[in-house]
């Protein structure tokens, strides 16, 4: 398309490639006249001005010239660096040399004139390699080679060609610097300047050609094109000097003689030509079409274009001077534009007058259609690229030019090109190796549970004083009495202060104080003020007779009030008289309300900080202290708060103090650090994050530090029994951190940090990770945007707006926590998916939306999976990150309905996300029809292969008559016992059809329960009970506190009980040699037969097994087993331990165990915890320490954490030691 236009009849030259911005030099063309017959001449420079939308080019400078130009060239070498040299060829053999820099500045730029030629200098060309050399051609076969450094003495490339003719063009070879092509009307002569002689002459005797112009191939040194301006044979011939007898190819399309031609330096598949047919054509001279491949007709003009020039810097641009008095700039890139209307001024003035005797064509508006090259130019072809993908992937591709060229070089035209492999590389980029390392350490610490130790290490590692302090404070949170520790960090060591106080106060005062309180006690008993008065007087010693004044002064009035028992008035009078002590004492008799008011009034009138303190102590309102104290007294305020505030108020108050400090920190930045300590005490994640990273943490080290802090703080807060809501700044931080881990390819770890928060950012990222890990189907796969359009709202989070398809109700659980509180996703059969140890101990998987599975998987026969685990998570259930991320709690469900039998009916069955059962995608499956109704248990559930120990033969006998059908139920039961083991996965292969009687109509129900739950164990009375409750049938409905992860402990706990409960023939000996997958079936069977609920069974347990402890109260007998086993393991470990470090660890374990025993003695542990502990003992006895660790993780993620935090680390270390030392009780 035509881009720009200059109204000049001029020979032009583009500025060289190195020159920026692009300019065009235009020298008034010789042999041309305009309407004014002016013979003036000028050399002008125009700026391309491409960004200006109009067609005009800006005239930068203009110098008049005495001579008109036949040819101009612009080279990059000049006396001054930068702009180069412009050379013009003129009539009479004149060559003018201009300094382009000066020209651009409109200064006198003419550097030299040489008149060595004899006729008009038609052609000029700069050498591409030595830019100081240029060649010129003129009449009489004259060719000169000039050196800009020595312009006076040009040299000749060799003897003049005979006969003497005009040299029509000269052109340096593009590849070999000493080769020069020249054309004469009948021949083309190639010169070798090293030899100073012509090395080849090309002539075509077949066609009647007149070689006007030559063009070298930009890449192939031996190829050139010759164009003929002969109207009878307006052809371009492609020659190869290696086969110089005839042209390789003839390009035929011009209808009249060709005036100029240029080969594009940037794409050798592009050759531009213009001719007397007014057309500008773009060819592919390398194309395979016999007559030449025309890629585009760039323009059709009204007059001849007498030259065509590629812009060296912008290969899409071509300049064409035209005899109609315009120089046009065309862009090869398409785009429709209105053809600029031009008028032929010569024609206007002198109709019929025309330099080349051509009748002027009547001007008309021509609308050009957009012209594109039939084949894209090379410069559009991106050869190389790299992009990033989710998970730190780098996707690279490149065009191996060398290989391609090599392959293609040997290909003859027309031949099928050989296959070149076009490859894309996908790589993993890890840039933050340290971060990954630190992150792993943190995870380990979180898993290990030695938080205080971690804090101490951090404290020691860091050099930053503030950091040290922070870690110190954090460590305090893990001490037995955090508040005391914090106080002492604040400089208030309770003991030393008490000592100090005692010194000052002395015992006597103490005594008095006691006495006083006695008095008060007495006082309360007095009915009569007079008596009180009396007593006081008595106390004062020898009393004088008392006269009661009833005058009207204050005292008298008070007396009167007292006499009439108008306490209020008496108080008021005393206050008025500033007899505060009296007022307060009197008020005590007036009831708490009056007392409070009196105190308030007193404090109001008192001044001084002490009174504020007293006020706070009395009113238990610390807000005023916090808000009003001097900022510098923040420590005192914090100390007071720590001392007095209740657990509920403490965080708020500390936070308030922190806020104040933050506010003040604008004036005194140092206070920010103190504010952080307050936030730390408050457990205010958001504030701490914000304060820590006011300018957003970008540095990954800092982010890691902050995360470490946050994770530990979270643990600390959880230890206080508070739940951590991940939202706001913390969610933001976690998301960024997780995303950073993702970018290092640590997807699983990242997912663990994300927990189960419902924060939109978090759930979006979590979903993305899960899909990327293949744990979940992408939304895009299952859903149709059109459908979704109707209900999705853009404001909602992604997950909500990707409905999984027609039934989307439960596909977006992320955003609908409510849904879960009513329908807690109990997930017992899928322990492997729970996460612990990680930040918010949340589970990721249970929240997974159920992607609707393609139709085929809607099989009426439910997959008989008792523990349909996500393969990935099961596989990784041991050790490593994923093991840590197994058991997770979801806060939103933790307060779910109780476990009672009655409630159970409404319970969702333990739905397992990964189950291929597509029916899950609707809500209905959550409400499972009573199992009894279905009354079938798929036979396939036989887990025998999994639990070889499990008695394969049907324990039907054990069940007794009341237990109806399932012969295999016991084995099914066994499955849950393997809750921590991969076996469930392997149970898959045992794909069995549901029993014949299984009604196909309720396929949903039984797989959800995992057929393993023997519904009929308890008779039809509890038909729809969810599995967990099955295990605890007799348990009183207890608050269902520990939703997903918690589902396990109850059953397992019962197992533990059962193990103590010797059942004839079911197991060997109690607490002895169960393999880890304890086959609970026995117990259940036994239980159901005996109809003994667990508790009863417990009571019935043998009591004499354990030795009694002398010093302390005895551990309840049913828990003796715990002590026995734990101690035994510890002793064995201790014996086996061979390094002092381990021994020390075990000593610590002993201490922690003692804490446990104490708790047992005091019966301070919840039944759930006890159950779990028993189960752990069982596992230990079975030698399955891994499962024990899993259980540990599960326990510490439970709601009882605060209760058990004091000893659980000890159990963990114990288990780890046992593993490490290979200690087994068996």
């Amino acid at each position, binding site marked *: 398309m035509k881009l720009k236009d200059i109204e000049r009849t001029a020979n032009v030259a583009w500025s060289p490639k190195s020159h920026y911005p692009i300019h065009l030099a235009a020298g008034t063309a010789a042999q041309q006249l305009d309407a004014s017959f002016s013979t003036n001449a000028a050399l002008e420079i125009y700026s391309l001005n491409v960004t200006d939308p109009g067609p005009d080019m800006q005239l930068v400078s203009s110098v008049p010239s005495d001579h008109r130009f036949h040819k101009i060239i612009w080279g990059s070498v000049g006396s001054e660096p930068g702009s180069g040299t412009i050379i013009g060829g003129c009539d009479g053999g004149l060559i003018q040399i201009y300094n382009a820099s000066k020209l651009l500045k409109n200064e006198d730029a003419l550097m030299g004139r040489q008149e060595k030629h004899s006729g008009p200098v038609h052609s000029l060309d700069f050498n591409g390699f030595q830019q100081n050399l240029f060649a010129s051609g003129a009449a009489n076969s004259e060719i000169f080679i000039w050196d800009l450094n020595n312009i006076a003495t040009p040299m000749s490339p060799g003897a003049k060609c005979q006969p003497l003719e005009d040299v029509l063009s000269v052109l340096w070879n593009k590849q070999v610097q000493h080769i020069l092509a020249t054309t004469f009307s009948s021949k083309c002569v190639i010169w070798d300047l090293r030899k100073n002689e012509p090395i080849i002459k090309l002539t075509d005797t077949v066609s009647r050609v007149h070689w006007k112009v030559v063009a070298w191939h930009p890449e192939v040194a031996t190829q050139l094109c010759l164009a003929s301006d002969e109207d009878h044979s307006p052809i371009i011939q492609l020659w190869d000097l290696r086969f110089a007898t005839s042209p390789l190819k003839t390009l035929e399309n011009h209808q009249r003689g060709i005036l100029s031609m240029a080969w594009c330096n940037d794409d050798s598949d592009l050759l531009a030509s213009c001719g007397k047919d007014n057309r500008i054509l773009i060819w592919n001279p390398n194309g395979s079409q016999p007559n030449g491949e025309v890629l585009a007709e760039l323009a059709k003009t009204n007059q001849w274009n007498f030259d065509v020039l590629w812009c060296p810097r912008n290969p899409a641009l071509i300049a064409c001077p035209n005899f109609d008095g315009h120089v046009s700039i065309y862009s090869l890139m398409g785009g429709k534009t209105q053809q600029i209307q031009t008028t032929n001024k010569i024609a206007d003035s002198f109709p019929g007058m025309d330099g080349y005797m051509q009748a002027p064509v009547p001007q008309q508006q021509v609308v050009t259609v957009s012209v594109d090259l039939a084949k894209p130019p090379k410069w*559009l072809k991106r050869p190389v690229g790299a992009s990033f993908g989710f998970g730190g992937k780098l996707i690279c591709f490149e065009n191996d030019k060398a290989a391609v060229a090599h392959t293609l070089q040997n290909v003859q035209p027309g031949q099928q090109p050989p296959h070149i492999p076009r490859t894309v590389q996908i790589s993993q*980029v890890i*840039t933050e190796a340290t971060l990954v390392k630190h992150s792993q350490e943190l995870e380990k610490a979180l898993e290990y549970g030695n938080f205080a130790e971690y804090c101490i290490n951090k404290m020691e590692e860091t050099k930053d004083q503030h950091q040290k302090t922070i870690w110190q404070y954090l460590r305090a949170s893990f001490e037995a009495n955090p508040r005391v520790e914090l106080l002492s960090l604040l400089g208030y060591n309770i003991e030393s202060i008490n000592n100090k106080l005692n010194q000052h106060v002395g015992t006597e005062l103490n005594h008095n104080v006691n006495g006083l309180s006695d008095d008060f006690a007495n006082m309360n008993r007095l009915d009569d003020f007079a008596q009180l008065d009396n007593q006081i007087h008595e106390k004062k010693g020898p009393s004088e007779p008392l006269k009661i004044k009833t005058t009207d002064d204050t005292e008298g009035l008070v007396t009167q009030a007292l006499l009439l028992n108008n306490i209020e008035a008496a108080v008021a009078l005393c206050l008025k008289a500033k007899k505060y002590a009296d007022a307060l004492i009197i008020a005590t008799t007036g009831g708490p309300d009056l007392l409070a008011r009196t105190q308030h009034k007193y404090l109001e009138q008192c001044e001084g900080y002490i009174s504020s303190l007293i006020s706070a102590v009395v009113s238990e309102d610390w807000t005023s202290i916090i808000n009003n104290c001097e900022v510098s007294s923040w420590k005192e305020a914090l100390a007071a708060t720590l001392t007095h505030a209740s657990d509920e108020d403490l965080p708020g108050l500390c936070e308030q103090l922190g806020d104040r400090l933050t506010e003040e920190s604008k004036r005194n930045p140092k206070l920010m650090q103190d504010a952080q300590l307050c936030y730390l005490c408050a457990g205010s994640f958001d504030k701490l994050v914000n304060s820590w990273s006011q300018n957003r943490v970008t540095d990954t080290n800092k982010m890691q530090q902050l995360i470490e802090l946050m994770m530990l703080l979270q643990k600390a807060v959880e230890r206080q029994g508070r739940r951590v809501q991940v939202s706001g700044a913390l969610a933001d931080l976690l998301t960024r951190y997780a995303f950073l881990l993702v*970018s290092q390819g640590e997807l699983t770890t990242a997912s663990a940090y994300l927990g189960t928060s419902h924060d939109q950012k978090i759930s979006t990222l979590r979903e993305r990770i899960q899909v990327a890990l293949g744990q979940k189907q992408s939304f*895009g796969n299952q859903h149709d945007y059109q459908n979704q359009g109707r209900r999705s709202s853009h404001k909602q989070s992604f997950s909500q707006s990707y409905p999984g398809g027609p039934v989307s109700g439960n596909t977006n659980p992320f955003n609908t926590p409510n849904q879960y509180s009513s329908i807690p996703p109990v997930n017992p059969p899928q322990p492997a998916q729970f996460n612990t140890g990680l930040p918010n101990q949340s589970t990721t998987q249970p929240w997974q939306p159920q992607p609707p599975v393609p139709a085929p998987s809607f099989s009426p026969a439910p997959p008989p999976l008792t523990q349909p685990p996500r393969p990935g998570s099961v596989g990784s259930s041991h050790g490593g990150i994923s093991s840590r991320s197994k058991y997770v709690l979801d806060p939103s469900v933790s307060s779910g309905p109780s476990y009672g039998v009655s409630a159970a009916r409404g319970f969702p069955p333990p739905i397992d996300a990964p189950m291929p059962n597509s029916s899950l995608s609707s809500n209905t499956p959550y409400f499972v029809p009573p199992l009894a109704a279905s009354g079938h248990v798929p036979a396939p559930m036989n887990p025998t292969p999994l639990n070889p120990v499990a008695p394969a033969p049907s324990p039907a006998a054990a069940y007794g008559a009341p237990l109806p059908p399932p012969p295999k139920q016991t084995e099914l039961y066994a499955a849950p016992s393997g809750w921590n083991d991969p076996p469930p996965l392997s149970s898959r292969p045992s794909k069995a059809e549901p029993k014949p009687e299984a009604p196909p109509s309720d396929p949903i129900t039984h797989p959800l329960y995992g057929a393993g739950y023997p519904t009929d164990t308890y008779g039809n009375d509890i038909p729809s009970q969810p599995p967990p409750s099955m295990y605890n049938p007799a348990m009183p409905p207890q608050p269902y506190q520990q939703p997903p992860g918690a589902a396990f402990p109850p059953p397992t706990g019962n197992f533990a009980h059962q193990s103590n409960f010797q059942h004839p023939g079911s197991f060997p000996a109690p607490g002895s040699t169960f393999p880890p997958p304890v086959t609970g079936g026995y117990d259940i069977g036994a239980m159901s037969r005996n109809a003994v609920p667990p508790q009863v069974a417990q009571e019935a347990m043998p009591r004499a097994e354990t030795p009694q402890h002398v010093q302390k109260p005895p551990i309840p007998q049913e828990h003796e087993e715990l002590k026995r086993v734990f101690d035994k393991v510890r002793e064995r470990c201790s014996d086996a331990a061979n390094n002092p470090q381990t021994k020390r660890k075990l000593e610590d374990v002993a201490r922690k165990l003692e804490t446990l025993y104490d708790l047992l003695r005091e019966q301070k542990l919840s039944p759930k915890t006890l159950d779990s502990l028993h189960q752990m003992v069982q596992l230990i006895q079975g030698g399955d320490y891994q499962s024990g660790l899993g259980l540990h993780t599960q326990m510490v993620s439970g709601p009882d954490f605060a209760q058990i935090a004091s000893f659980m680390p000890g159990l963990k270390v114990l288990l780890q030691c046992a593993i490490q030392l290979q200690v087994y009780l068996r």
Partner: protein
Amino acid sequence: MVSIINSIDTGHEDMIHDAEVDYYGLRLATCSSDNSVKVFDIKSGVQTLIDDLKGHFGPVWQIAWSHPKFGNLLASCSYDRKVIIWKEHQRKWAKYYEYANHDSSVNSVQFAPPEFGLILACGSSDSSISILSYNQGTNSWDAKKIQNAHAIGCNAVSWAPAITPLFGNGEGDQKPQLIKRLVSGGCDNLVKIWREDGDRWVEESKLELHSDWVRDVAWAPSVGLHRYTIASCSQDRRVVIWTSDDCLNWHSTILHTFDDVVWNVSWSLNGNILAVSGGDNKITLWDQNSEGVWQCISDVAKGQGQINN
């Protein structure tokens, strides 16, 4: 460490011009001068060709994946002046929408951040930029055009992340409006920032520094930073990092002047690493050190490289 996971012979019969993985990193799309687009499943390091999309009649320059919330859509643009949006249905891809309203090669396509809806920007050699928005109500695509965005042609477009400006961050205020912005680069050597203003797109900034065609522009994803960062690369062998706090005043830093033209710049998803691909087939990774100075951290050759921090 840059370590190769997978090397995929795409089977393309001509140069590859773009390779992009989807939102989850599970599928790879490639496009080539052989006029085709290929989609591979690359889950777990094994690649399977899912489909070979034929529908363009010229080299396909660029491809873009939509956010999965809109379904599995893939946009491709070609020298044949067309933009095609492909849609997957049961692992088969079919033409979903074709936009043929450009007058020259369409060089760049990119989907807007999903927050804005299903919107596609296309940059063309006809010097215009099209913004195609899917209208759910009518199940149709509306096209807006920025005419004369870049003289001689637009080479690249990239969307600004959907972040809210730092100002007006005050709580309780009504939610700050998300503003749609685009950056484009073209043959006029310019980098331009466009902002949607009502139903028009206006040129908000014009960044002049490059002295040759701007080959690629990439607006950095903003992970937690209320700061705008753009990378541009050019035929002038330079990569420039542009930063701004308000999208009005831009500060430029020349990342580096390379030995060859630079074709492609691409940010990591965190926006902290920039991959630069040059005409000499050199791919380098850059990040900012703690002093904020850009440094080359890796030379990637055939998908492999070391990380030097």
